[in-house]
């Protein structure tokens, strides 16, 4: 396949950026989107140009490092991560636009790389459970009913890639934050910090400059892990409950 790529190039955080056009040839359908970019970068390096910077790590859809907006869609046309998106979803002669996540809370570091440490600060403010350190706890010490375990797991699937923020017209981080809150708040292990967790994580989320939720549902459409939109409503319920109970206890 022969493709035309239009990629956002930006040398540094304060530099101006622009869409830059490249031609790539010899792309086969089995390649992943990142392998296609690898091939472009090899050509750029050989011709003495700066390669396109992009984030990636596991390349198997579990770490959440990779992420770019492909033809206006976070992670491209399939419900998966960019590393697991294959070139068979494109055809010979296509023009593909590649841009970084766009959000005030995710400033561009270089080209397609954005700084997502705002997510780390949200996690740091409440996305954990307090446990005594020492030997591993006995697996049956705290029984968890199967439906509860299933709900927790469904929300624990979030890999923190940031596609929800990138896709949301308001640059809101509600789906990410709610996935983390619901994951821990439904489990008995998360109960001691149930109120403080949701209040602190929402407060951090707001202070990081993410937008507000208007329930457009774009986040859940873009999520490569299928986090359900109803997570947001559940978090709102947890938030109201925590406020009614007089705020932080944990």
């Amino acid at each position, binding site marked *: 396949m022969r493709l035309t790529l239009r990629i956002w190039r930006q040398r540094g955080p304060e530099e101006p950026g622009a869409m830059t056009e490249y031609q790539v040839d010899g792309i086969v359908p089995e390649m992943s989107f990142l392998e296609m970019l690898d091939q472009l970068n090899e050509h750029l390096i050989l011709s003495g140009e700066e390669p396109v910077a992009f984030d990636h790590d596991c390349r198997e859809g579990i770490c959440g490092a990779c992420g770019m*907006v492909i033809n206006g869609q976070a992670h491209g046309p399939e419900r998966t991560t960019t590393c697991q998106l294959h070139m068979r979803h494109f055809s010979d002669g296509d023009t593909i636009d590649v841009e970084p996540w766009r*959000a005030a809370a995710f400033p561009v570091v270089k080209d397609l790389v954005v700084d997502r440490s705002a997510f780390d600060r949200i996690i740091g403010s409440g996305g954990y459970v307090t446990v005594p350190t020492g030997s591993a706890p006995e697996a049956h010490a705290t029984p968890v009913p199967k439906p509860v375990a299933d709900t927790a797991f469904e929300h624990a699937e979030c890999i923190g890639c940031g596609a929800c923020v990138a896709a949301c*017209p308001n*640059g809101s981080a509600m789906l990410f934050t709610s996935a983390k809150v619901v994951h821990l708040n439904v489990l008995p292990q998360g109960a001691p910090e149930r109120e403080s967790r949701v209040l602190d994580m929402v407060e951090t989320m707001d202070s990081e400059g993410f*937008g507000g939720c208007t329930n457009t549902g774009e986040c859940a459409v873009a999520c490569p892990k299928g986090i359900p939109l109803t997570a*947001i409503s559940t978090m*709102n*319920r947890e938030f109201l409950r925590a406020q009614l109970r007089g705020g932080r206890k944990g």
Partner: protein
Amino acid sequence: MAATGLIMLAYLLAHLLGNLKIFFGAGEFNAYAHWLHVIGEPFMHRDWVLWIVRVGLAASVVLHGVAAYQLSRRDLAARPQGYQHQRRRASYATRTMRWGGVILGLFVVWHLLDLTTLTVNENAEPGHPYENVVATFSTWYGNTIYITAMLALGFHIRHGFWSAAQTLGAGSPRRDRALKTAANALAAVLTCGFISIPIGVMTGVVS
């Protein structure tokens, strides 16, 4: 947003039921309009209930608008640089919440000038609400303004009711379908119900 929206929604349901009395003749409609002034008597003085409702509604409209403005500012600031490759996003009702809301706000002003203060209603006479409604819908612009606004209302509620349920934490995977159906039903009932009145006048059923 959600609380004030739901207050206005509850009012609209009551307002619609009241308005539909127009199909039972001038006597019944005007008597209903008169009763609105004397609700609660003798416990309440004349017009007290009316003014309590008016103040509550005015506060809701203003707070809803202020909250919408603040939310929109925050949302626009959260994406200072947009995407070069634009895609059409979300449903029509969802995308038009802001402009739809502005249209509804302007409509409320016109509506008050038209049928409450009678300022812009050329053939109106104070104390004859039935006749004034017929006068409004005997002009092409009256029909156009009301029907356009009611279509905008339908879209605003279609997204707004469901959205309010999410905001208040009432959404869940099990209830999602029921909430969406309720939002569509409320939107359809209010839009069709209110539009039936200009149509009634235009077709001569109400005259």
